[in-house]
Structure formats: structure tokens, C-alpha cells
């Protein structure tokens, strides 16, 4: 991947003058980002339906295309030609602005992620901080949608979602910090290179294991996934904060939700499982060389999709929590545990007990 991007870059700068070359690069990157975004939506929704089907001993979508792989494309086309209604009594500006906010947040968070070796849109020195900061903005879009809809279901869903997202962000942030303490950098490329002789999940002992478990629980809640999907609990709130949305506006919320899942799983894979870094033990061993033959993008997407699969698995394993149980879990258990865990991580890093 590194070679491809380098070659394109060199060729552009050799052929055109710098300003035009830069503009062409912008255009290519924009197109790639939108393409990735659309692909993620289609693939993840198809995957969700197939995983659900397998867990419930069904076949899942199998009519459109071989094994139903074009089902989500067909669904998207259908949603595009549907009527986009704006019901009476809604706040028109906020109602239409909410999908924009949710989508922009989901798409901007993709920028600092490293998809393969040397393949990253934006390598900023505050990468992890940027992701945690921006991804929490999506709660504004959700609250906006719920409030603007003028529907009791929507308002309740949005309120629950707001309380839930902000609560779980604390322990997600603290469990991320446990890894940051060990690497000493917020830059995603540096975090990945620090795992050259083993991923943090293997190198970091107890604090990283605890942090990983807390991280997975917290991001499941942050992306409003079952068992924490109170914001759109079908049995009580119809569709939660997007009850009043129809057609493409609804599809945009749906798409943003799946891209958010991808982003948090990619972040988890980067911090704990080494991102694009192949499975390494120590330095310079034969085993490492064999592992290096597998391309870095395969490693990255493999780990990310494994974590996504785990989160989908949760959905069909655990029953939904009540709102007070949900907040108790966070405030009374996860938050103190992750706080102490962070201290443990710093202690271990000072004593140099990690590998």
C-alpha cells in the first residue's frame, strides 16, 4: 500500500505543478473517503443481517444476487426513491440538520485511522484524542433529532441516548488512557509502531486486559448497540430518536450508526490489537517474518471485523438493560474500576513490568 500511494504521489507531483497536484490529491482522497463510507455501510448491514441469521438458524437475505450480497444495495436504492416526509409540528431546521451532524461526525472520525501501512488520511499528533473528542459530538445530532421530531418516543429515546453516551464515554476514555500511558503518544502511527514486538493485549498484562474489556463494553454502549440499545428499544419506543424519520434521512442515521461501530472497533483494534501490525512475538524471529507476508490491510480489517463480529454477537446473547441498571453499571462499577485500572497501568509502566 505504501508503494502505491508513494507512486501516485510522485507521479502527480512530477506531472503537474504542486498546486494542481495537491488539488488532484484532495479530489482522490475525497472520492476514496466517500467510497469507503458507502462500502462500509453496505457491507456492515449485510454482515449484521447474515450474522443475526446464522445465530437464529435462519438463512438471512438470499434473493438479490448470490447469497444475497446485493440486498443492501437494493435496499439503499429503494430508500432513495422513497418519500422523505417532514411531519407536522417538527422543527424543520433542526429536523433536517440532525442527519448532517450525525453523518459529518461519523465521517470526520475516519480521518486519523490507519488502514494499512502508510495508508492514512491524516496523521495528527493528537489522533486518539481527536477521535474521542469528535465521536462524542454525535450525541448532539441524536438529541437534536429527538427534540425536533415532536414525538414522545423520539424525545425519550434521545434523552436516554444522551445520558448513556455521555456516561460511557468516561470509562471508554479512561480505558484508552491505559494504553496511552504505556505508549506515551497520542499519535496513531506511533501507537502502532510501539506494538512491533507484540500487541499491547499480550505485552500489557492485567491493566490492558481489564482496559480492553471495559473498552468493548463502553463502545457497545456508546454506539447504542444491544444490550445497551435503549435509545431505539423497538419494543417500547418504536424506533427511538429516529421514529419520525423516513426514506433517505432514516438511512443516513442508520449508515452513521454502522460507520460509528466500524470506527470504534478500528480504534480498539489499533490500540489493543496492533492495528495493521502483523502478529509479532519479540523481534527478528522467523515467526515474525512469516506473519509479515500477510498484507497489513488484511490484518487491520481482519481485526476490526472480528471486533465488529463480537459486538454483533453481544446483540443476540444479552438481554436489554433498564436505564437505571445501565447507568448503575457505568457509574458504580466501570468508572471506579477503570480509574483504579489506570493507576495500575501507570504503576506497571513505572516499574517497567510490561514487556
Amino acid at each position, binding site marked *: 500500500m505504501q508503494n502505491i500511494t508513494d507512486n501516485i*504521489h510522485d507521479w502527480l507531483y512530477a506531472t503537474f505543478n504542486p498546486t494542481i497536484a495537491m488539488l488532484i490529491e484532495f479530489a482522490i482522497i475525497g472520492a476514496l473517503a466517500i467510497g469507503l463510507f458507502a462500502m462500509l455501510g453496505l457491507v456492515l448491514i449485510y454482515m449484521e443481517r447474515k450474522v443475526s441469521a446464522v445465530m437464529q438458524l435462519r438463512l438471512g437475505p438470499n434473493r438479490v444476487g448470490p447469497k444475497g450480497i446485493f440486498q443492501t444495495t437494493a435496499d439503499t436504492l429503494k430508500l432513495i426513491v422513497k418519500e422523505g416526509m417532514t411531519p407536522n409540528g417538527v422543527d424543520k431546521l433542526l429536523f433536517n440538520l440532525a442527519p448532517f451532524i450525525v453523518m459529518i461526525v461519523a465521517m470526520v472520525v475516519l480521518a486519523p485511522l490507519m488502514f494499512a501501512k502508510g495508508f492514512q488520511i491524516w496523521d495528527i499528533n493528537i489522533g486518539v484524542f481527536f477521535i474521542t473528542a469528535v465521536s462524542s459530538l454525535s450525541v448532539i445530532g441524536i438529541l437534536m433529532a429527538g427534540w425536533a421530531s415532536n414525538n414522545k418516543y423520539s424525545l425519550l429515546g434521545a434523552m436516554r441516548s444522551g445520558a448513556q453516551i455521555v456516561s460511557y464515554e468516561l470509562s471508554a476514555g479512561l480505558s484508552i488512557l491505559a494504553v496511552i500511558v504505556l505508549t506515551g503518544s497520542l499519535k496513531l502511527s506511533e501507537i502502532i509502531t510501539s506494538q512491533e514486538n507484540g500487541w499491547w493485549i499480550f505485552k500489557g498484562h492485567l491493566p490492558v486486559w481489564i482496559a480492553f474489556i471495559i473498552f468493548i463494553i463502553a463502545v457497545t454502549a456508546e454506539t447504542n448497540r444491544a444490550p445497551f440499545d435503549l435509545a431505539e428499544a423497538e419494543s417500547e419506543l418504536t424506533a427511538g430518536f429516529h421514529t419520525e424519520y423516513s426514506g433517505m434521512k432514516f438511512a443516513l442515521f442508520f449508515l452513521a450508526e454502522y460507520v460509528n461501530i466500524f470506527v470504534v472497533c478500528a480504534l480498539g483494534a489499533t490500540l489493543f490489537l496492533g492495528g495493521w501490525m502483523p502478529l509479532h512475538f519479540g523481534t527478528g524471529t522467523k515467526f515474525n517474518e512469516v506473519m509479515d507476508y500477510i498484507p497489513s490491510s488484511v490484518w487491520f480489517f481482519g481485526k476490526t471485523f472480528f471486533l465488529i463480529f463480537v459486538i454483533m454477537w453481544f446483540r443476540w446473547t444479552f438481554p436489554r438493560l433498564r436505564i437505571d441498571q445501565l447507568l448503575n453499571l457505568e457509574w458504580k462499577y466501570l468508572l471506579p474500576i477503570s480509574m483504579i485500572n489506570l493507576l495500575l497501568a501507570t504503576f506497571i509502566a513505572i516499574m517497567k513490568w510490561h514487556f
Partner: protein
Amino acid sequence: MIYLLQEELSKKVMDVNDIASYLPIGIQIVCAAGLVAFLMLVTHLLGPKRKTADKLQSFTSGIESHGDARQPVAIKYFLVAILFVLFDVEVIFFYPYAVNFKGLGWSGFWAVLLFVGFFLCGFIYIIKKGALKWEE
């Protein structure tokens, strides 16, 4: 690729905190907004527009909706939001420490231990005060 582009930019500006190093994110925002606007426009042009009074009612599972939905909600939600603001500030304080703690060594560790001690005092206070009791 912008990653490579950034090197190009950083040759010119040198300073990482310069506004120009945030240019990629600006492009990303423009792309995202453009995509959403495009999709909304397309669906607006392609979709049918048949508005009837029944269809435009807000959905309440078939029951007629009563009154305005924007009623006061339980104070607990706002309490959680306020607590979040307090605790999030504390989490943010940890970021600079986590990045720099190797240089700070033991003295930094004791300082943070003290900080977490204060944090836990406040935490125990709000739990005892019943800020998270939803029953009454």
C-alpha cells in the same frame, strides 16, 4: 495520501499546530456535508410527494397523539449530564499526564494518586447523596 501531503505542507509551515495541518479535516467535513446534501437532494427529487393530513401526523403507534411532545423530562437525565461534565474534565486532565508521565516518574505518580484520591472522595459523595437513585 494526505498523510504524504502533510509532509508536503509541513515542509512549508514547520509548526505542527499551524492551522494548515488541519486542512485535511476541513476537506473531510466538506466532503461529508456534500455527500449528505447530495443524497438529500436526490431523494427529494426522486421521491413522490403525496402529503395527506393523516400521513403527516406524528407516529404514536396508532393512538391519536395528545398535546405537545416537548414536555419536561425526568431531572435525572440532566443530573447525569452535569456529572458527566464534572468527571469528563477530570478525564481530560489525565491526557497530558498519560503522554508525559515517563518524564515525570514517581513524583508525577504520587501527584496523580492524590488527584485520584480527591476524585474518589467526590465520587463517593455523589453516590451517598443518591444522585444515581432512580426509584424515588
